[in-house]
């Protein structure tokens, strides 16, 4: 790893912003669409409402809104970006990469651009990839965006899935940060034997779009909630334990937890295992539902803006998702806004 003097190069977040579509869909709105109830959704998931993109809004549109604000937050101009990574499960098209559409709109003419697919874990995966580029000296400024329009891949007649997800985007700018701040460790994991616990079968090379595929509803998300739940609670524990171990820290060192926002029950389980009171755990699943790759930046931004995360705090981001995948990341927070 390249060193400057004695100092190891560390990557960290130096800009952050989010965007959510205007339209709010509440649990009582859902009650009119499928056989469900506000009580059931709140008790099992903690979700009260979610955002829904407009018909003409696609993932790159949300990503663009978040990115412009994140670049402004970082004080970075588009032509300074070396690399754009978009983490998404709902790209504008199968190809080209949504990151390329974003690159063009931003005018980031010096940037490489690609999409990264790792389910809801994609954001942590992408920040981890970005930090490797910075630490290796192959990029100085990376834009990472988690953006989703999940409401367009839901079956609005399937109460098992449609109540859970929402749309949104979050963008971060990654650069080298000074001193002992920045990303201290990350860990990525996968268990492909669980691929069919959460997936969208249609539209790829296995089941290309056809009238028959549409008739069978293969263009919609399918999920075995029970299996994903079990994987998720284990993944939260394992992801956090691994990044702590890699950073040479222990559970008592954690100041703040940013868990993937899929279900309050999974978040509470993780907090309990880590002995963290809920005021040191980011929660916004009540207002956005599961926004997949946007969930962690959305939660991080709220925690920052409300002053819950301070310079030097040990912050863990941890998540899980389709793949199945999981990941953790541990940062010593660098207060770039100071």
């Amino acid at each position, binding site marked *: 790893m390249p060193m400057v003097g004695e100092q190891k190069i560390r990557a960290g977040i130096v800009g952050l912003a989010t965007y959510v579509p205007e339209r709010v869909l509440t649990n009582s709105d859902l009650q009119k669409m499928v056989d469900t109830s506000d009580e059931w959704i709140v*008790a*099992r998931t903690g979700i009260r409402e979610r955002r829904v993109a407009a018909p003409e809004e696609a993932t790159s549109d949300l990503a663009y809104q978040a990115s412009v604000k994140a670049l402004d937050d970082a004080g970075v101009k588009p032509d300074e970006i070396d690399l754009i990574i978009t983490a998404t499960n709902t790209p504008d098209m199968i190809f080209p990469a949504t990151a390329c559409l974003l690159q063009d709109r931003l005018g980031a003419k010096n940037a490489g651009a690609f999409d990264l697919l790792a389910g809801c874990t994609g954001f942590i995966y992408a920040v981890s990839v970005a930090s490797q580029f910075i630490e290796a000296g192959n990029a100085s400024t990376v834009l990472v965006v988690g953006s989703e329009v999940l409401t367009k891949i839901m079956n609005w007649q399937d109460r098992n899935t449609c109540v859970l997800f929402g749309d949104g985007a979050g963008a971060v700018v990654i650069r080298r940060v000074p001193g002992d701040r920045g990303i201290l460790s990350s860990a990525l994991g996968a268990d492909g034997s669980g691929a069919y616990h959460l997936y969208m079968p249609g539209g790829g090379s296995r089941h290309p779009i056809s009238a028959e595929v549409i008739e069978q509803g293969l263009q919609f998300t399918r999920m075995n909630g*029970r299996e994903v*739940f*079990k994987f998720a*609670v*284990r993944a939260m524990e394992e992801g956090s334990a691994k990044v702590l171990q890699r950073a040479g820290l222990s559970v008592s060192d954690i100041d703040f937890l940013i868990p993937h926002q899929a279900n309050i*029950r999974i978040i509470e*389980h993780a907090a309990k295992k880590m002995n963290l009171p809920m005021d040191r755990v980011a929660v916004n699943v009540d207002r956005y539902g599961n926004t997949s790759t946007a969930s962690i930046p959305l939660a991080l931004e709220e925690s920052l803006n409300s002053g819950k995360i301070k310079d030097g705090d040990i912050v863990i981001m941890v998540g899980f998702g389709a793949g199945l995948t999981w990941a953790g990341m541990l940062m010593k927070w660098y207060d770039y806004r100071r």
Partner: protein
Amino acid sequence: MSAVFNRVKEIIVEQLGVEPEEVKLEASFVDDLGADSLDIVELIMALEEEFDLQIPDEDAEKIRKVGEVIKYIEERK
């Protein structure tokens, strides 16, 4: 009371946030101890870990009362 009962009781108290006195053999997880389906999933996972067991979903679905869990674990130890 058996050693298994005491360990199971401790886990139920921890997972469901109930009082130890409420954890009786004839107590139903849902009706008496206020568990919902996700509480039961978490409980089964905690028991699997504590007793180093695999409890398949088909079996888990049949378990309704505290006594049934104890019996299930004792039979497999």
